[in-house]
């Protein structure tokens, strides 16, 4: 079920009142059923995977906690990690590694007959796998006590607002809330509505509409001129951000309707003045997951300078692989790791500046230049993220170098400028107010007018356009 569909709105309108009418004892059971319905709506067969992952980590988590023998604990952790990664690896990476291996073998003149499988990638598998993994790892690290309720744990894994595209929640944050089966307050409803309105607008009116242009251009880049390709790339930057941050806002808003707070996943990343800051503001739940469970597990910055850079590169390359089973994603991750490593090198041990403090016109100008430079670096990386292949990416790069236009540059500029203006405007307001539900700062009368207009147009557009799945569903 897509958030940007009428069926989800109907689903939400049924789930929220029933949840609040029910006795607290039955709320989680009901929510678990609703979450499975939400997930099974794509394909009910996917439910078996989520159940397998839930069963494995629930029992392994308890076993780790109740076991004092370090060797046994490590073995149990290995069981959980291997079990989850096997599911993920098979469904997401089997063909990637099989194809890559066959291609490598063919370089040496070997022809490998292996079975290329037609596997459907289950929606959101990377997200819930990482979420359940963090549960067992935290128990192993003695940072978390396991829950005794299978129902609550199953709901923690399958909680529908954040099941298919995050935020990748930590058990320490989400489980205690689930265990309480809270009721939403009036404030929760107000904030939830504001978040959903902003999220839907971002997703449907910005992300999806950008996506229609981006998909055309990247489907066959050779048909397009340099300005058109540049438009495709810049609009993709807007699309991926509006789409994912819009999703996260809707997820947060939906959870608030159920009285549950889920973490912020995006914090105006395009207003970052350096790449380190950008990665602290972009897909925060994944960045922090990778930091806590990969980078730190590899030794972090505790094993010398060289090893720190290596760990950074490796973590970000894995981040690329997490995004998709394609070498272009791996390269994108490696590129991001390189940018971070170079920035770390430039900083020479100093901490990266986060945020902007106004200290006169010059400081603002310098900040603006840094923001533009950071965005340009990010755009360069996104080219590999979005291109279907390296040959397409290199073709596009060549077109950027040997600029060639067939006219209509003014129209192209207008489209790109409009999308950037609206997206950045929302970000600036959020940045300024330090509030994602900034609409609540308006008087109720003004706010209501804005809701009617924004939601009205969003729904009309949704009605007449094809619902676009979220970009991050494929991951």
């Amino acid at each position, binding site marked *: 079920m897509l958030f940007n569909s*009428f069926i989800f709105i*109907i689903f939400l309108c049924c789930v929220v009142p029933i949840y609040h009418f029910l006795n607290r004892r039955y709320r989680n059971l009901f929510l678990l059923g609703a979450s499975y319905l939400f997930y099974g709506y794509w394909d009910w067969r996917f439910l078996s995977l989520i159940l397998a992952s839930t069963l494995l980590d629930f029992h392994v988590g308890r076993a780790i906690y109740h076991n004092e023998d370090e060797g046994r604990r490590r073995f149990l952790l290995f069981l959980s990690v291997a079990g989850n990664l096997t599911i993920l690896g098979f469904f997401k990476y089997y063909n990637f590694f099989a194809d890559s291996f066959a291609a490598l073998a063919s370089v040496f003149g070997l022809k490998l007959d292996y079975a290329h499988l037609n596997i459907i990638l289950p929606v959101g598998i990377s997200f819930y796998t990482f979420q359940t993994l963090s549960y067992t790892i935290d128990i192993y690290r003695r940072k978390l006590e396991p829950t005794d309720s299978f129902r609550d744990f199953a709901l923690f894994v399958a909680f529908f607002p954040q099941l298919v595209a995050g935020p990748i929640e930590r058990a320490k944050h989400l489980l205690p809330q689930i265990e309480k089966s809270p009721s939403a307050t009036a404030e929760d409803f107000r904030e939830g509505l504001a978040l959903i309105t902003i999220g839907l607008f971002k997703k449907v009116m910005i992300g999806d509409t950008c996506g229609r242009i981006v998909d055309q251009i990247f489907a*066959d880049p050779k*048909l397009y001129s340099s300005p058109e390709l540049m438009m495709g790339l810049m609009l993709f930057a807007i699309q991926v951000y509006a789409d994912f941050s819009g999703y996260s806002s809707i997820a947060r808003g939906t959870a608030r309707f159920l009285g549950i707070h889920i973490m912020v996943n995006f914090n105006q990343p395009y207003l970052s003045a350096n790449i380190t800051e950008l990665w602290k503001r972009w897909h925060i739940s994944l960045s922090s997951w990778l930091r806590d469970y990969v980078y730190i597990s590899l030794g972090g910055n505790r094993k010398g300078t060289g090893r720190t850079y290596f760990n950074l590169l490796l973590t970000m390359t894995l981040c690329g692989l997490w995004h998709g089973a394609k070498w272009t994603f791996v390269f994108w991750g490696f590129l991001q790791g390189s940018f971070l490593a170079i920035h770390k090198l430039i900083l020479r041990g100093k901490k990266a500046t986060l945020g902007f403090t106004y200290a006169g016109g010059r400081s603002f100008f310098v900040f603006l230049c840094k923001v533009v430079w950071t965005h340009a670096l990010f755009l360069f990386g996104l080219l590999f993220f979005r291109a279907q292949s390296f040959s397409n990416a290199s073709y596009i790069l060549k077109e950027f170098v040997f600029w060639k236009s067939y006219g209509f540059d003014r*129209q192209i500029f207008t*489209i790109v400028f409009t999308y950037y203006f609206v997206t950045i405007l929302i970000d600036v307001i959020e940045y300024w107010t330090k509030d994602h539900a900034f609409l609540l700062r308006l008087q109720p009368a003004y706010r209501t*007018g804005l809701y009617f*207009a924004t939601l009205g147009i969003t729904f009309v557009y949704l009605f007449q356009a094809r619902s676009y799945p979220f970009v991050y569903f494929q991951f």
Partner: protein
Amino acid sequence: MREHVRFFLKMTLTFTIAMVLLELFLRFSATTTPSVLVDDDMFGKMMKPSTDVTFVNEGLRIGRINRYGYLGPAYAPRKEEGTVRIALMGDSYVAGHHLFDRHHFRYLLEQGLNQLCDSHVEVLNFGFPALNFEQMYLYYEVFARKFAPDFVIYVIGTSSLNQPSDEVGPRLVVTDDSVHISYAFRSSKRFAISKRLSPLKRLALYSLLRKGKQIYDRGDAPKVIFDKFFILARGSGRSAEKHSVPVERPERKAINRAIVRQLGMSNREGGPVSIIVTRGELPRGFVEFAKNNGVAVWDPSARLDSLARSGIDPNWWAGSQRKGHWNQYAHRVIGDFLVHKMLPFIKSLAKGQKTLRDPDRAP
């Protein structure tokens, strides 16, 4: 009470301001293109001259309606001495609102002919979405004729022959052996309402709402809203579509035949040479009738089939993942097909053979 009124006023004010801002967003981001049509006393509606257009549908088009009110380069009605002009008449397949002009067969035909022959060739795109054969003919008569084409290519499919004409527009009246154009629509209520609504039509918001209404009118609303549940309730037991032999609807037959007779007469009398190019299979009876009346019918389907056999579906749009009009590769094939079909005529025209009575005799 006063509090409520104040609340309502504030809410209305914010709503209005938000709608204005949303209108600007929709317009400048090309999310919804406001209607490019204006009311016209001759044809009911015409493309608004000098208008930038961006269409994102099955494909992408960024372009402009030229200052004369048609698509592509602005060739003035008066043509230069020695210039050969080809007018393309057709519906959305010819208008090509889903691809750039440089990928359109209009451009490829013009380029190809200019490279291969000594005459200067200009190809004018008078494509207009949703026109039927009658309307294409009328559009030529009331508008395209002014541009003095030497050749007029009608691109039609079976739907062009069978689709009823728009109420708001001229009609062709057939009486025995003659035809004349009726402009009765000018006094119709619908035309008057359409004219009154014209400022609204220039809004992107209006376009957005109109598209929604079209879906509602088609009866697709339950499917959009209830998604899989609607399909479950209705059942998925639809029988596979069978290939049916194209037929001409009896009520449209007289009009279509009258037009063909007119085109044939023009071909015989040294007027602009009219040619029919098919987009899909046409009823056999119609094709025979056209040929018997001296109107050539060219069928590029063999070329398109060979494109499909090479692994490229001529109607598949990879960007939007759906089937639709001819894509860029199909346009390339059509352009090439027409270049080779037209070349002998252009060359013979250059040699001074002013009248080309039977274009089908071409090698």
